[in-house]
């Protein structure tokens, strides 16, 4: 191996065996995350973003789910080959996760301080006093004012933004190498969203952790990520660094997504907001050939027959489309 990536996913396939067939929630997904980098994973609802994240953490319920193939190399070793107890040592310690719903992701019967302390307790042997200091340090890191008194509060006493900070503090408590943020700002209102995103960017600088940032919001991605992967129906359609992707998107799906971002004042010129026609295909009835061809504005005849391979356009820009073959 020439270059050591922090995380390298190779041909990951996560399937769900359900009544009526096999759901290929994640099908042949590969990407890498380097140290101190934020990779954005964008896509519509149900395209497999969260399943990808849960696969990395091995949080897929088995059954009905199963990882049908592929490798997830974290610091050079395959996570999928770890034992259950070996996996527990990684979770929360080396790789941690930030959840979408700050309202329900904290246990309602414990104080927030206890919940952050539990993470530290699980992974490090420290005295009660040292743990308390670490919790307060984590709270300071996520800019919670007056941490000494706030650690004694219960989740229901805190606002959504504060709870999301606590969740981030939990994720940071053991100084992880990688944080997986699964739509961390979606459930928050816009001003709090901006604060949380700004906080995460600063924390990345301070702690040097890499972030896998999952969202459906392209505007958020532009602010957060260095590289972006666009997912559609369980497959990666396009990957590039953030500037390239936004200045010259190649895949028709990406182009469609970009043009369907509303721009303030668009109505004045009597121009309608453009949309992508059709709906995401059902995972039960995936189309032949390119998964996107039924909704694509530039589809050739071969798009409906042959699945396009991943094409490397150079400079780290990859796209899964026949147009560039």
């Amino acid at each position, binding site marked *: 191996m020439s270059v050591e990536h922090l995380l390298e996913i190779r041909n990951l396939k996560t399937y769900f065996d359900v009544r009526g067939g096999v759901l290929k929630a994640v099908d042949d997904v590969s990407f890498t995350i380097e140290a101190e980098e934020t990779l954005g994973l964008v896509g519509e609802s149900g395209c497999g973003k969260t399943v990808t994240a849960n696969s990395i*953490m091995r*949080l897929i319920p088995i059954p009905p789910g199963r990882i049908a193939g592929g490798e997830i190399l974290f610091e050079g070793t395959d996570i999928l080959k770890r034992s259950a*107890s070996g996996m*527990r*040592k*990684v*979770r*929360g*310690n080396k790789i*941690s*996760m930030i*959840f979408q*719903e700050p309202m*329900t*992701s*904290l*246990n*309602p*019967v*414990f104080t927030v301080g206890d919940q952050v302390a*539990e*993470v530290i307790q*699980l*992974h490090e042997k420290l005295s009660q006093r040292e743990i308390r200091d670490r919790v307060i340090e984590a709270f300071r890191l996520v800019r919670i004012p007056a941490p000494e008194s706030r650690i004694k509060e*219960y989740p*229901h006493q805190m606002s959504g933004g504060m709870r999301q900070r606590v*969740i981030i503090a*939990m994720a940071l408590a053991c100084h992880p190498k990688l944080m997986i943020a699964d739509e961390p700002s979606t459930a928050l209102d816009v001003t709090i969203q901006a604060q949380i995103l700004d906080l995460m960017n600063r924390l990345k600088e301070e702690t040097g952790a890499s972030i896998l940032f999952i969202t459906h919001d392209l505007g958020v991605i532009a602010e957060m990520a260095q590289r972006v992967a666009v997912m559609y129906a369980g497959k990666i359609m396009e990957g590039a660094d953030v500037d390239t992707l936004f200045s010259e998107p190649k895949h028709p799906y990406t182009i469609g997504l970009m043009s369907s971002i509303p721009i303030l004042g668009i109505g004045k010129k009597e121009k309608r907001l453009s949309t992508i026609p059709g709906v995401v295909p059902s995972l039960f009835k995936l189309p032949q050939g390119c998964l996107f061809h039924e909704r694509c504005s530039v589809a050739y005849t071969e798009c409906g027959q042959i699945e396009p391979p991943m094409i490397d356009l150079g400079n780290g820009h990859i796209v899964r489309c026949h147009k560039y073959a």
Partner: protein
Amino acid sequence: MKVKKNKPKVNLWARVTNPEDRHPFFDQIEKLFENKTGVAGLIIIALFALTAILAPAISPHDPDENSLYDQLKPPVWNEGGSTKNLLGTDDLGRDMLSRLIYGARVSLTLGIVSVGIALVCGCILGALAGYYKGWPDNLIMRLMDIILAFPYILLAIVIVAYLGPGLRNAMMAIGIINIPRFARIIRASVIEEYEKDYVTAARAVGASNRRIIFNAIFPNCLAPIIVQASLGFGEAILSGAGLSFLGLGAQPPLSEWGAMIAQGRSMILRAWWVMTYPGIAILLAVLGFNLLGDGLRDALDPRLRD
């Protein structure tokens, strides 16, 4: 002008009374105290518990002391009654009041032990069934169904007959037959809580299954358990008295309410008090726990809250 003082000291009383600052536990305690029947139950149980604890101090006689001269004396307000035996005596001349007071000890112990057995076993089995689902769930819950399929008192009789009569075995039998009630309630709560995000979050920070079940999920299922424990307490006392009445529980000369009723059964026409007072004692104790259980349910169940 008023000078605002800065008091950084933690005011403990405010943690209990101030609605903004207090622990959620006290909110529920307050809800319980607003409930009149719940408070009535609490008072009855408190009296009952005090009687049991202070039995040697407040009982006028030794409960096992026979007296050939005082056999079947009626209560004090009846003709022939005396202040020596306020509630009369039984056929061996033992003081009824003292026996009732000591009987509270037996009933309380019986309640604590049998509910304890049912609670611990039921919670563990129910939590495992609800958490792991699949075959452990099927195995455990079918076993619980089998226990429930037997008539309640019949199964207790079978268990006691197998273990041998005696208060200790009666407590175990009542504990065992109450396991399914707790197991079912816990299983349902665990299944409900399992879907919540904080469980996934706990797994994502590296908590083990055992830790997730007992440290994360279990404290969230406490409300229905507390209610069931309170209701089960009353029922355990009743079944304990039932077993003792049948001669399978407390053995003479131990003063147990059920055994006292059995003993007075043949004399009901001659000496009604030997049987009536233990019956009233059982009634009050069970009523107290049932009232408290209902009050707790109103206070703790989120579905019944406005």
